[in-house]
Structure formats: C-alpha cells, structure tokens
C-alpha cells in the first residue's frame, strides 16, 4: 500500500500479466515501473459463506474449478470458464480483469449482474465499490491512484443467473457480445458486455414480467454498440436482441 501510495500512476500494477503483457508487447504501454502483486501473500483465496469473497490474485482457473463457486454461484464459474484458453485462465486474475476495465472481458458483466462489489484498499483505508460504479469506460475505473483492488464480494442467497458468450470468430476469442442475467428476489438484472466502453445495464428495461424477446429488442435499441474486427455495430445490435432473449429464456 505504501508503494502504491508513493508511486501512484507511475507504477503499473501487474497481477497475472495477461493484460499488461499484451499492452507492453503491442507498445501501447511503456511503464517506467511495475508493481507486481505476484509475491504479495494473502491475496489469492475463495471464501464462501453468506457471500462469496474472492481475493484479487485468485486466478480465473481457480474460480472456474472451485467447488464452492460451482455450487453457490455456477453462472459466475461459467463466466470465468469461457475466458480465452486454460493457459490464459491459469494466469489471469479476478482483480486484474476488473482493474484493467477491458471492455471485451467476460467476468465483469456477470459480476455486475450478480450485484458484486469490489474492495479498494489504500493507506487511507478501505471502501466498497459496486461494479457498476467501478468500470467507467474503456480501460478506465474509479480507483484512486493510491488504491489497490484487493477483493471482490458477491452476494449469496437464492438467485438464478446465466452467462452467454457469443464469439464471432475463434473459440478462444474474446466475446463479440456477452450477456449476463441474474434474477434475485423478484429483481432482474441484464448486463451486456463487450459492446461498449463499459458493461451495459439498463435497470428500467429489466422488467421481470416482460417478454424475453421484448427485453432483447429494447436492449438492442438502447445500446450504442462499437464496430470492430469482431463485428459491426448493426451486427452487434442483431446479436444483442437474440442473446438477451436467449439468456432470459435460459434463466426461466
């Protein structure tokens, strides 16, 4: 924490290195210093009680295979299980995938739909940030320069959830559209990922009594999708309508 407070933005935090590694290799990032969390003890854990607590250095693979997560939060396990390949999932971490705020990742949308909060710690103390307030835009979060993301908390209790990843290219590709949906005590959350700078959630459209196809069309209209090598904006709109509907049908 002291190092983070001292170096702030000048030091790039490295967890699993799957994101920072690509950015450095592509010369999109040339940090003067790295702050590696690899040998920091006590940041890799899965604790499941009333709520699920995941240490920031817990790998995707650990979450995917954790019996507690598979039992209590199976949709979350599945959202981590569809990321890239096992080689990547053995490196990539829970904290990293949130803190890098890459728009084309799978887990953030699912965490948002589940109502998860990130725990940010600094020399000043600790605070909880709901995922919807954490990721602001492409590669941009509300973390302060002296803060480190140390834990993710996912509410427990009875709920139904589903994650659907739509890939337009290779199976190991990032999503063209990712849809996470969660129903908890009559409340519905639908979150669409990989289509804009941050996970797309429109509470006003999430009426659990509405026909799934209608919700799908409403989301397709509400989102302003990006165009890139995975698909054009108009194609993404088409897929959003279909995949949101399918997610809600899966959920029912």
């Amino acid at each position, binding site marked *: 924490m002291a190092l983070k407070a001292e170096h702030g933005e000048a030091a790039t935090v490295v967890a699993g290195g799957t994101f920072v590694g*690509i950015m450095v*290799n*592509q*010369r999109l990032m040339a940090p003067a210093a790295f702050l590696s969390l690899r040998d920091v003890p006590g940041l890799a854990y899965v604790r499941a009680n009333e709520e699920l607590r995941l240490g920031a250095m817990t790998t995707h693979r650990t979450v995917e295979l954790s019996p507690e997560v598979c039992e209590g939060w199976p949709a979350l396990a599945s959202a981590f299980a569809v990321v890239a*390949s096992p080689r990547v999932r053995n490196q990539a971490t829970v904290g990293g995938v949130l803190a890098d705020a890459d728009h084309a990742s799978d887990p953030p949308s699912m965490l948002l739909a589940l109502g998860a909060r990130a725990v940010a710690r600094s020399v000043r103390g600790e605070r909880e940030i709901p995922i919807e307030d954490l990721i602001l835009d492409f590669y941009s979060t509300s973390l302060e320069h002296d803060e480190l993301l140390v834990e993710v908390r996912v509410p427990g209790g009875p709920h139904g959830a589903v994650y659907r990843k*739509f890939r*337009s*290219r*290779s*199976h*190991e*590709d*990032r999503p063209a559209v990712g849809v996470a949906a969660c129903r908890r005590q009559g409340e519905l959350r639908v979150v669409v990922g990989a289509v804009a700078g941050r996970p797309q959630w429109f509470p006003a459209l999430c009426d659990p009594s509405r026909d799934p196809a209608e919700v799908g069309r409403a989301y397709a209209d509400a989102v302003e999708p990006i165009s890139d*090598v995975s*698909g*054009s904006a108009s*194609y993404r709109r*088409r*897929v959003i309508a*279909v*995949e949101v509907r399918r997610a809600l049908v899966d959920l029912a």
Partner: protein
Amino acid sequence: MTDPRVTGRARYAEDLEAEGMLHARIVRSPYPHARVTGLDASQVPEGCVVLLPEDVRDLGRYGVQIRDQSVLAGRPRHVGDPVAAVAAGSARAAEEAAASLFVDYEELPAVPDVLQAVQPGAPLVHEGHELASTGAAYFGLRPQQGTNVCHRFRIRDGDVAGGFEQAEAVVDETFRVAGAHHAAMEPHACLARWEQGRLEVQTGTQTPFNLREELAGIFGLEPERVRVVCRPMGGSFGAKTFLRTEAIAAALARKAGRPVKLVLPRDEEWQTLNRHPAVVRVKLGARADGTFTAAQIECYADTGAYADSGPGVAQKMGFAAPGPYRIPNVAVDAYCVYTNLPPNGAFRGYGQMQSTWARERAVDLLADRLGLDPLELRLKNLLREGDRYCTGEPMHDVHYAECLERAAEAIGWRDDRRGKGLSVILKGMQTPSRAAIAVEAGDDGTYVLRCATAEMGQGAIHAITLLAAELLGVEPDRVRFPAPDTDVVPFDTRTTSSRSTYMMGRALEAAVRDLQANGGRRGFGEVANAGGLDPDTGQGVASTHWHQAAAGAEVRVDEETGKLEVVRLHTAVYAGRVVNRPGAELQNEGSMIMGLGSALFEEVVFRDGQVVNPNLSDYAIPSFADLPERMTHELLEGESGEIHGLGETALPPVPPAIGNAVASLGLELFDLPMTPERVTEAIERRVGVKA
C-alpha cells in the same frame, strides 16, 4: 533420438548469439505512400549504429521476380516500409534508439484496393517495372508498363464465345478472398556478419539459394562470397521465403563492423508479409445435361507494395482456376496488382486457395441453376487419365473422381444433402524445378546427406532421412542431415510448393545409385523437371505432377446470429506413395485447420492502409476448440508409386466445401471469410430455401 524441437534444444535464428553482437530495430513508415523529406538522427544515443538512406545508396535493388525494392525506402509505399534502421547493444536500447530517430514525410496519394489499382488513372505504386534476372523469375513475366499490373498471365484455349453460345446455363459471379497472415510461432529472425569481405547470414529461410543470390546482387558480390546457413524454423507457411529482413541486418553489420541480429516484434510481422487478398470472377457455362462448355475467369491478386513472388502466385491462381475438369473452351486472365498495402507473398496454398474458392462455389451455383446434384455434375466433368488440361498438357496418375467419391461417402452425401457441401481441386507444383543432393559415407557406417531442403516443421528432414535409410539399407539413425549451408550443399530450387519429398526423393535415388556405382564413398544425384507455360496463351506444362484432393463438409447454421458450426469435415488427398505416414497425416490436419481459419474468420483488416489487427488477440487463428465435431482425412495411394507432394493440398478444398454446405441451406456466400455477419447478410438475401 528425441527431437530437439520437443526437448527445447533446437536453436532457432532468434536464439543465436555472437561475440560483440548488436541488436537491430527497423524504423518504419506510418504512411501508406509518402516521400521521406528529412531524417534527424541527432537524438539517437551515442554508441548506436544508424542506417540511413545514404548508407545504402551503393547497394543494388532487389526483388525475386520484379526488381522493385531497395534496402531502405526513400519513398515508402506501405505502412511499415523500412526507411531507416538502428543497432544497439540490447534489443531494448535499439527500440529506444529507433524511437529517437525522427523522420519527416510528405504524403502521396495511395491506392489501397486491388480493383481501384487497375482502374485507368489510378495512382501508380511503381512508375516502371524492371524484370529480375534471378532464378525465381523463371517464367515469362508480362509487366504492363504504366499501370499497377506487374504481371499478366493468360490461358487461351478453344473458342470461349462459341462455348458460351452452346451453354444452356451460365453462372457469372465475382468472389473475394481476404488477406490472411501466416502467424508462424517464430517471428522472422536473422544474424548477419562480415568476415574478410564475405557475408554470412544465419536465418530461418525456405529459400537459401534465392536469398544468397539476392544478397550477392544487393552488395555487389559473387554468390560464393555470401554464405546462407538455414536455421530450423518455428513455422513458416511461406512467410520465410526470399529476402525479408536479412539485407537490413547485413547493411547494419557492414556499417557497424560487428555481427547484427534482427528479430521482428510480432506486430511487424503483419507489415512484412501476408497472403494475397484476391478478387476472382468466374463465368462458367454448361449444357442442360451438365456438360461444361466454357469457362472465363479473371483473377486479381493484390500483391501490395512490392511484387515479391506475387507474379508466381497470380500465375498459379490463374492456371489452377479452371480446376480438374474437362472444359473445351477456357480463357483465364490473371493479374498481379500493386497496391499500397504491405507486401503479399507465398502462403500455404499459393494462390490456388483463392481461385479454388471461386470456381468450386461457381460449380455449385451452376448445379443449382441446372437442377443437378453437385456431385454428379462434378463427376460428369472431372478429368480422367490421359485427358488434356487447358494448358495442353496430358494428365497422368489422375485420381480426382476417387478423391471426390471418398469425400462424398465420408459425409453421407447420398443419404441426405442438406447442410452438406463438396469440393475438388488440383494444385500445381513449382515447374520447372531442379533438385540435387550429395550422400557421403563415413568410416563408421553412417551417412551424411548434403542438400538444401529446409525444415520448417513440415518434417522434410525426417521424410528424406527415411527414404535415404531405405535406399541405403541402413537404420534411419545411421543417416545424418545437417542444416542446409550454401557453402556446403548443392543447389536446390527451394523448399516450397510441396515439392521436396517428390523432387529430393528422386534426386536421392540417383545419388545412392551413384554412390553404389562409384566405390561407396560419395554419390551425387540431380533431377530437373522441364516445363513452363507461355504467359500469353497458357500453353505448355504447368506442373510435372498435380496435387489432387477433395473435401466434404457438413454445417449447422444459427439462423438468428449467422454463426456457422462445422459438424463434419473430411478431406481425401492423393499421395501416390506415403513416405512417412505420421508426418503426412499431420500435414493434412494442419492444412485443414488452416483452411478452417481462412474459411471462417481469418482476415487481415486494413484501415487507410494500416493493419488494424496486427496481433494474435485481434487476429484470430483457429484453436483446437474450433475443430469440427468430426474431422477426418485419408491419404490415397496409387499403383504408380509416384510420390505426390501434400504439404498444402488439403487446404484449398476446405473453404469451398464449407461454403457449398452453407449454400445447400439457401445461403449463398461469395466472400471469405464466412463470418457470422456475412452469413446474416446471406440470410437477408435468401429468397427461397432449396428442396
């Protein structure tokens, strides 16, 4: 003996070290077409060696078919064209030095598209076309001066207009194939040094003798003053052919007076060489009973800013375009066209995937028009033993029908055609072609093979070692096959076009006979295949033996998202005689997987001449999870025992088999790759579903 590639002991060019070695970095143009108006090297740190245009002014131009390249470009013609280079004590220092060199440019009009480039009045990428005199300029080149066409190849056989008059049904469609990237695991890497006026280059290359010839020409040396040592390659797929990075490393080494190593960062791979994007127009006519009457085909191969082997690629795209069919009247026009994109060159399939996609889709469209079964239509028209191809050459050892029948059977074509597709191909081999090998006996019962066949993971060394052991009557572990070194091995055309086992195998037989006839110490064998085509009529011998294959595919389509799923894929490849079965099977599987990538999603995407996806995150290649539910293949053997090359034969039939399977659902696709987005467009276009 454990393969050093498995144990990690293989030393690739990237791993080489030399005393006093410097690391190089290239400074590249950010514009697709520009003129360098100023270079400021004053901020480059002390101790770095900088290569500027004035340092290469005395050097010759190069280019294996058209002499259109200089070691550094004063007028860069594509994004990534080298304009300067630096060398420093470490790779990181070289990167920093490159970033501290400032270049001023004046932008020039650029032409990013092949069809724009052939329009009259299009900006010229090169004002004139100077033919190369190298061994790779072996065919009659027909550059069209004053245009962007650096080679035009034609086939003129029969009376095409008359043939279309006899046709009851005619299909005339235009197809597009996107650029693709080789994505070899190992990037381009080389180490260059000078000793007493002699240049030595260690590099991963499929073409050691072509490279030696080019370097000798650039530096004004006798070829014997240049030594090229081939390192094993971590994949190539055509990317490591001819001269790539070696001249810059050699020029830096000359200036520095020290060895220089140059390893390309991954993103620069996409600026160095890709596969030709192409536009292919096919007009095909048949009588009501399905008998083909005429074919007229135009191919436009986008070779990017420099010709490289593009003229050869365009020619093969053209002469393979009519396919393995009896067509009495054929006209083909193939154009190799400059644009302001990064250079395109050899890529597994060598142009023939592009024209095969177009023709095999057109055959299915024609079958639909005639109301015939696409399998029966093909069988009716396929070439048979002794038939004459449109180049005038008689076809021998012909097995197209057998390949096609096997593919059809594998996917249960005759049970139910819905969701299924077929394709059949021919593919030419480098012709004319020459190969030589020396066999030397040691005192301890071992033998050493000296030849230029390069190992890029394809297993040529293993296959040729097995052949040698069999001919010499010894165990394979008694045969050694050192890496090719132009100082030691006899001349060979190159390790390309699936020719090595076939050509080198025959040279080896001659060498072993020579050894046995002359005291058993040393034998030398050489074979030469004559042939070649008249570039204006396409008459002659296109290929001394043809690669033959067929594919069958079954697909499922998610009609809401357009996502394609290949459920079943089978290829049947004619091998003649299988030398090394596990190696041959891996070649088939590798070719099929590459074919899947080209079929479904691989595409180099350009915006304003810049590659948008120059990394393996944004450029997707197939993973094992992308394989069809069932993917199988077979190697057919023949009575003749003639070895047929198979390093790339199973690639070209894969995209059209999948495309035809999708078409059986009423979804007509014309462009590769068949992305879900393109499939949804076909869904919108569909007017009615076929029975």
